[in-house]
């Protein structure tokens, strides 16, 4: 009985300090790591990886497994931190261009880069197109994006670079990371934080990428007894794109607008040519080419493979490139001097029609340099084989290599449908006046509210389709649904459709793995685990001692530690 009371007292003495210290430790632990959320999974799109003539460019890695850091991390306390095991998350909206230029230009080591784009640049973001509201902010953002793209495409980056879109999860996580970084604690294995993981295999080369040209033929009316070949007019547009993120390169303006215009013109002329009474004395050739960003590789291959006689019958070719912006000014780019008869004729036709439409068309002459392999405009490929050609575009200067080819900032929200309609009308009317010999006469063939009016909903549906389909040529299979759709559409409007498949110029090698899923984990640090181990160890030891004392008495506990000496005592 006495023993029981004594053990009771001892137990109550032990319970309180154990309990209070356990509570204190628990509070400390809670302060170290906040309650974690479930895993977040986000779609991300990888920077393009390609070799140009053997020179590796773009992001060379795809797998990502590092801690996340924000832009504050690198500038904390003015000390240049070691970021080679950190993934920097940079929202493009707040991007510091000099910082990026420094990092990429000087090839500073980095664990990875995640650029966050505002949701307006997402292909799924359906907003009212045309860019009406807060223009200046959008324009500024567009410029920043173009600059960042240019930097990234032309650099050799040895770490993974991904593009993602801002949403509430990522924004919350970024705010959290910024808070941690601002307090000066770098997030590494010992201090917890967020871990970003993209599980992707090593990117492999795309073996023998193909470019597919689609050509539609509308034959003209041959008079009986006329054995001469009819002249041909070609209308050309390249349909593929290239951008920093191939999975996001939808190129609504470059060159979705050109493709949509070509299809509409084909539709209008197919109506005219279906009736022999209104069929003109010109053959019409509609050509959708691929390999545009790569010095118009597809056009060149088509020109070399097409029948020589057909090529000789081409009077001239009109190439369409980026006609979707809101400005009232278009440019006709030529490589033959402006006093060439065909060019003069073409330009006069365009000018007269444009006046009626309220557009302004200017003429720009740029000589070709045969020794330079760079082909800035599509018509230059035609000119190199002595076919008269011109390019109609909103751009006033020739774009640089891999620029204005449908990058990140080129999506549906920046294209004006009305401009495309006007351009279609311009080209169609000029062509029609040439074909039917109505130059100088005040006639409007494709008048509004007539059966031949330009159909805005047709163009809108094609524009929307193209604006949600990334079209980087090496990633399009030979029988890709896009190519099949374009082929079928041309087959509807023209009499004969030919599909030509060619290998892409050997100078370009592309690598796969263009998108992935980013897993964001909130991880506890090693110190937390060690602390927990310590805590548990002391808890179990306390429990053990407590139980021994209760059931066997304090003497037994002490005897556990004195076992070696007690043996000595036993021997007599």
């Amino acid at each position, binding site marked *: 009985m006495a023993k029981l009371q004594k053990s009771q007292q001892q137990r109550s003495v032990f319970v309180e300090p154990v309990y209070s210290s356990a509570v204190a430790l628990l509070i400390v632990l809670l302060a170290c790591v906040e309650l974690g959320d479930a895993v977040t999974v986000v779609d991300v799109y990888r920077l393009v990886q390609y070799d140009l003539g053997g020179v590796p460019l773009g992001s060379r890695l795809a797998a990502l497994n590092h801690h996340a850091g924000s832009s504050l991390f690198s500038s904390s306390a003015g000390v240049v931190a070691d970021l080679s095991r950190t993934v920097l998350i940079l929202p493009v909206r707040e991007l510091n261009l000099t910082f990026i230029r420094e990092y990429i230009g000087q090839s500073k080591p980095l664990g990875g880069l995640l650029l966050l784009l505002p949701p307006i640049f997402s292909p799924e973001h359906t907003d009212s197109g045309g860019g009406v509201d807060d223009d200046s902010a959008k324009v500024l953002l567009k410029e920043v994006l173009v600059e960042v793209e240019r930097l990234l495409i032309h650099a050799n980056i040895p770490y993974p670079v991904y593009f993602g879109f801002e949403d509430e999860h990522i924004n919350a996580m970024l705010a959290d990371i910024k808070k941690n970084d601002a307090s000066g604690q770098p997030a590494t294995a010992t201090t917890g934080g967020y871990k970003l993981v993209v599980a992707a295999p090593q990117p492999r080369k795309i073996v023998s990428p193909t470019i597919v040209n689609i050509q539609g033929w509308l034959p003209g009316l041959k008079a009986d007894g006329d054995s001469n070949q009819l002249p041909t007019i070609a209308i050309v547009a390249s349909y593929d794109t290239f951008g920093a993120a191939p999975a996001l390169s939808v190129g609504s303006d470059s060159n979705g607008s050109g493709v949509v215009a070509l299809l509409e013109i084909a539709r209008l002329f197919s109506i005219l040519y279906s009736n022999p009474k209104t069929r003109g004395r010109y053959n019409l050739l509609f050509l959708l080419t691929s390999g545009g960003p790569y010095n118009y590789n597809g056009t060149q291959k088509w020109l070399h493979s097409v029948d020589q006689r057909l090529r000789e019958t081409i009077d001239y070719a009109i190439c369409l490139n980026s006609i979707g912006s809101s400005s009232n000014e278009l440019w006709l780019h030529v490589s033959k001097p402006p006093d060439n008869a065909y060019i003069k004729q073409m330009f006069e036709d365009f000018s007269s029609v444009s006046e009626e439409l309220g557009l302004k068309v200017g003429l720009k002459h740029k000589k070709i340099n045969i020794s330079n392999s760079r082909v800035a405009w599509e018509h230059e490929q035609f000119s190199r084989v002595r076919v008269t050609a011109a390019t109609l575009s909103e751009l006033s200067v020739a774009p640089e290599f891999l620029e204005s080819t449908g990058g990140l900032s080129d999506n549906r929200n920046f294209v004006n449908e009305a401009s495309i309609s006007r351009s279609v009308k311009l080209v169609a009317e000029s062509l029609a006046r040439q074909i039917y010999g109505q130059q100088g006469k005040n006639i409007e063939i494709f008048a509004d509210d007539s059966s031949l009016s330009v159909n805005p909903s047709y163009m809108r549906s094609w524009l929307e389709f193209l604006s949600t389909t990334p079209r980087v040529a090496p990633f399009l299979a030979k029988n890709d649904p896009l190519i099949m759709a374009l082929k079928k559409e041309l087959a509807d409007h023209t009499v004969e459709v030919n599909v030509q498949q060619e290998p892409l110029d050997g100078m370009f090698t592309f690598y796969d793995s263009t998108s992935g899923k980013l897993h964001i984990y909130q991880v506890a640090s090693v110190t937390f685990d060690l602390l*927990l*181990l310590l805590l548990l160890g002391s808890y179990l030891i306390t429990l053990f001692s407590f139980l021994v004392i209760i059931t*066997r008495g304090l003497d037994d506990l002490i005897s556990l530690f004195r076992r070696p000496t007690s043996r000595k005592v036993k021997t007599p």
Partner: protein
Amino acid sequence: MTIFHFFNCAILTFGPHAVYYSATPLSEYDTIGTSVKTAVVYLVTALVKLVCLATFLKVSESDSFDPYQELLKALIGFVDVAGLYFALTRLTHRNISQNHKFQAVGLGWAFADSVLHRLAPLWVGARGLEFTWDYILQGLEANANLVLSISLAALGSLMWLRKNKPKTLIPIIYTCAGIVATMPSITSYLKLSLGWQLPKVVGFELFTSLVMAFISWQLFAACQKPSN
């Protein structure tokens, strides 16, 4: 690192059982056989409960507390008590005193419960990269469960094995046994109808288990007095 976390949670969940066995005189009297037999009885009881639940219980769409369903679950919970009765009275144990018998039975029961309910989620979940507090809370729950099982075994042995009990204490014994036996229903009521979060529920379980342990200790001591 995450194996580390799994290891931590595992020792939190299963450590106390091992410690209890080695610290108390149970290890000296080699009562492991009893514990193993009790664990087997628990498995059988769990199977029976599962079959009953599947047969009689409707799967409810909402997360609310349905009194009728909960009553049914509590009744099925008494199968637990029956299992414990069987383990205490019907199984042949080696010649060990009553004092140690209930402890061994309670230990085996709690260990089987932990392994069955907590080992699989721990193995699958705690090894991932993502950190959550769930597994630590689960370990604490296992601790509370150990204490509760031992108290229930103590009260059970008082009820069924001890013949000469002071008359005044009998109703208290039965009330306490009733409370401990219906603990699962009480916790689910708290979780579903009052909307308590897991940490709060675990805290409540720990607190009540300590209180019930203390009460059953006192009752056991009081009942032991006449035989002194």
